[in-house]
C-alpha cells in the first residue's frame, strides 16, 4: 500500500472514529441531569455551605473567591506554582545561547514588529493606561465583584504585551527584565505560601488570626484575600508576559 492510500485510509478511519465518539457522547448526554434545575444532584450541601457560610466566615462577598482563596487556598497555590514551573520549562527550552550577540536579537525584534509605528504608538498611548487600570481594578475587587487574581493578571499581561508591541523590546526592558521576573514571582509565591501556612497553623491551633479583618464590602476587607489576589495577579501577569517574550524572541535581553 502506498503512502497516499495509507493516509486516506487513516483519515477515513479517524473521521469514522470521531463520528462514533460524538454519537456515543451525545447519546450519553441525553441521560445526564438536565441543566439549570435546582433539584440536580450537584446542588447539594457543598455549594450551599460555600454560598451561605463562605462570605460570613471569610468576609469576601464573592463566594467563588472565598472558596478558591480561603477554603481551597493551597489548590490555588498549586495552580500558581504550575504557571511558574511552566514558565521555567519554557525558559529552559528556548534559552538563547550566551554567545548570541545583542545585534542579532535586536534584528529579530525589528523583523517581527513595527517599532515606532506612529498609529500604533498613539493608539496604545491612550489604550495602555486604561487596560492597566482595568486589570488593577479587577484584581483589587476580586473579593467584592466578579474577577480576581487570575483574570486581573491576564488583563495586566495583555496591557504589557500591548506596550511591548507598540514601543518595542528596548523600551519594555527598562523595567521588565528576567531578574525582576524571577525575583518578583518567587517573592509573590513565597508570600502566598507563608501567609496561608500562617493562617492554617493558627486556625488549627484555635488561635486568633486577622482573617476577617475589615468591614465586608470595603476594598480593604476580607483579611488576607486581597494580598493573596495581588500575589496571584503578579504571578499570572509576569508569567504570561515572559512566556510570550520567550516564544516570540527567544528570551530576555537582560
Amino acid at each position, binding site marked *: 500500500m502506498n503512502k497516499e492510500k495509507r493516509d486516506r485510509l487513516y483519515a477515513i478511519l479517524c473521521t469514522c472514529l470521531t*463520528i462514533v465518539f460524538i454519537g456515543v457522547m*451525545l447519546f450519553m448526554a441525553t441521560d*445526564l441531569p438536565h441543566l*439549570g434545575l435546582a433539584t440536580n444532584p*450537584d*446542588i447539594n450541601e457543598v*455549594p450551599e455551605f460555600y454560598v451561605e457560610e463562605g462570605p460570613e466566615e471569610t468576609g469576601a462577598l464573592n463566594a467563588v473567591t472565598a*472558596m478558591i482563596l480561603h477554603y481551597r487556598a493551597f489548590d490555588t497555590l498549586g495552580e500558581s506554582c504550575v504557571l511558574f514551573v511552566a514558565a521555567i520549562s519554557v525558559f529552559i527550552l528556548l534559552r538563547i545561547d550566551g554567545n548570541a550577540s545583542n545585534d542579532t536579537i535586536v534584528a529579530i525584534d525589528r523583523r517581527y514588529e513595527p517599532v515606532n509605528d506612529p498609529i500604533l504608538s498613539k493608539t496604545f498611548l491612550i489604550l495602555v493606561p486604561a487596560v492597566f487600570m482595568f486589570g488593577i481594578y479587577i484584581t483589587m475587587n476580586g473579593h467584592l465583584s466578579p474577577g480576581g487574581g487570575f483574570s486581573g493578571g491576564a488583563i495586566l499581561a495583555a496591557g504589557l504585551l500591548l506596550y511591548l508591541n507598540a514601543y518595542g523590546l528596548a523600551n519594555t526592558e527598562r523595567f521588565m527584565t528576567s531578574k525582576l521576573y524571577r525575583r518578583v514571582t518567587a517573592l509573590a509565591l513565597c508570600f502566598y505560601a507563608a501567609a496561608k501556612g500562617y493562617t492554617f497553623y493558627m486556625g488549627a491551633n484555635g488561635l486568633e488570626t486577622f482573617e476577617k479583618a475589615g468591614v465586608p464590602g470595603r476594598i480593604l476587607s476580607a483579611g488576607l484575600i486581597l494580598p493573596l489576589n495581588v500575589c496571584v495577579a503578579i504571578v499570572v501577569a509576569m508569567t504570561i508576559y515572559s512566556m510570550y517574550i520567550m516564544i516570540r524572541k527567544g528570551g530576555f535581553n537582560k
Partner: protein
Amino acid sequence: MSYFFADLPEYTAMILFGIGLSILMLAKNLVKKIIGLNIMDTSVFLFLAAKGYVENTVAPIVTPEELGHIDSALYSNPVPAGLVLTGIVVSVSVTAVLLSLVVRLNEEFHTLDIDEIIHILRKRDREDLK
C-alpha cells in the same frame, strides 16, 4: 425534546470535544494539533461552566446587607467556577510548553509537518547505521 434548548451547552461541548479530537488526530501541522487540544480544553470548560448554572439564580456574589441571612437558593453553584479556573491555568501552561517545544522542533528541522519530521529522523537513523 422540551429540554433540548436548555441542554444545548452540553451537546455543544460534546461536539466541540469531538472536533478537537479529530483535529488532534488528522492535522499534520503541529500548531494545528495544539489548537485542537485547546478546543478540547474549551469544550470541557463549557461543560463545567454550564453545569454550574441554576435557573432563576444570579452569580454567587452577595451584598453586605445580606450577611447573616444568606439564602443559597438565590445563587448559582460556585464549585464548577473554581474547577474551571484550575483547568484554564493547566491548559495555558500545557499550551505554552507545547508551543516552545514546537519552536525548538522548527529550529531543528525547519518544518512544522509531523510526517516530514519523522521522515527526516528515519533518514538520519539509516545514515547512522551505514
